């Protein structure tokens, strides 16, 4: 009896079953979903990382951190970049293992994955979904918040001249109310307005202030940063009449 006959006998005796169509379709579908999810998550991670790094006030971080390098390397943007890189290679391995991508050169496959991720990075940045996700994570994931360069502890240090939060009401051109990241309501006044750097502040804007506490829950801001731009706000625009 030859090998073929032996194998057939073995199949019959041990009742070896063929895998079902459903199993193959399920595997294929799950695999494609995994690849798409990888590209989307990688795009999102990179979008958040890029936005965080662009809005990183290095001058402030370096003043507040004894070891800037260590601080940055363990902060969310860098960790997210590592996540993106890991996902990138995970996607590459998965694609080469499960599709006919091996027919193309590595450069073409890697460029295609990179292109796909870039599309999602742009999508998350342009739509603002990256920032929204970052905020949701910071508010709901304690671990994420700890490693965020703009976590509560870092930015709510009014005694050290740092305060951040959302504008809740604009009183007049030089005064507004701010709800800080820990939920305290502050009255903020501006000093030294600069004519050449006029900008507009709106309710719900997330701002970072530099200045000093003059009495309980009253803060004088010498500098206001909106979206990391170093701007001294001169005029406020109240969206409510």
């Amino acid at each position, binding site marked *: 009896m030859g*090998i073929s006959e032996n194998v057939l006998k073995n199949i019959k005796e041990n009742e070896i079953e063929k895998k079902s169509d459903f199993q*193959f379709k399920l595997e294929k579908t799950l695999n494609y979903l995994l690849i798409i999810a990888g590209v989307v998550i990688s795009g999102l991670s990179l979008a958040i990382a890029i936005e965080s790094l662009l809005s990183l006030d290095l001058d402030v971080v370096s003043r507040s951190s004894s070891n800037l390098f260590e601080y940055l390397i363990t902060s969310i943007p860098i960790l997210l970049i590592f996540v993106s890189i890991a996902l990138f290679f995970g996607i590459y391995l998965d694609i080469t293992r499960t599709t006919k991508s091996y027919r193309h050169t590595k450069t073409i496959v890697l460029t295609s994955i990179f292109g796909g991720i870039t599309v999602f990075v742009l999508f998350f940045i342009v739509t603002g979904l990256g920032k929204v996700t970052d905020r949701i994570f910071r508010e709901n994931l304690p671990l994420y918040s700890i490693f965020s360069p703009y976590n509560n502890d870092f930015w709510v240090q009014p005694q050290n001249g740092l305060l951040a939060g959302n504008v809740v009401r604009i009183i007049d051109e030089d005064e507004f109310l701010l709800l800080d990241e820990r939920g305290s309501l502050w009255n903020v006044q501006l000093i030294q307005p600069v004519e050449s750097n006029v900008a507009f502040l709106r309710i719900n804007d997330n701002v970072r202030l530099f200045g000093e506490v003059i009495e309980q829950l009253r803060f004088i801001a010498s500098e206001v940063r909106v979206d990391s731009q170093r701007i001294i706000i001169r005029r406020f625009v109240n969206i409510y009449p």
Partner: protein
Amino acid sequence: MNKELKRKSDEELVQLSIENDENYLELMKRYEVRLLRYIRRISNVSKEDAEDILQEVFISVYRNLRGFDQSLKFSSWIYRITHNQTISHIRKIKRIPKTIDLEDGNIFDLIASSSEMDIEIHNKIERENIVKAINELDIKYKSVLILRLIEEKEYTEISDILKIPISTVGTNINRAKKILIENLNKNGN
């Protein structure tokens, strides 16, 4: 019935094997000798080990018949499974047997006489040198060389079997030839 089956293409036989296990026998018989030789050529395992590997291959192919991608040639698919199973076996035993079975001397004549090689075998010593030179080849070069020169596969088929780009197939074949000739010169001196 048997004659009818023999006229069927591999791909048609796959469909028939899904419907009836008996038809799978014909498919296995078509590949039994070729695959057994391929396993031994790339791995140098004993005849018994090669038969064990082939049995595992046939069982694996049987279990995955419904997953066969019709855009591939069946022969590419079954060679790929065989190649992977053989590599997996080599990894399991953590070594590549160093002696090629001289009974399979055909392989050396085939490689040497291939239109793509320019080697002349004049005597037993030269043949032994070729054995040594082939043995010294890395498995990735040995595989492409065997698939191209012995199994006479097209570049696209080799690409599908080894899951590497077609351009890499060409590169590896050229490198394999170069290394083989270098090894031959080294052993000849």
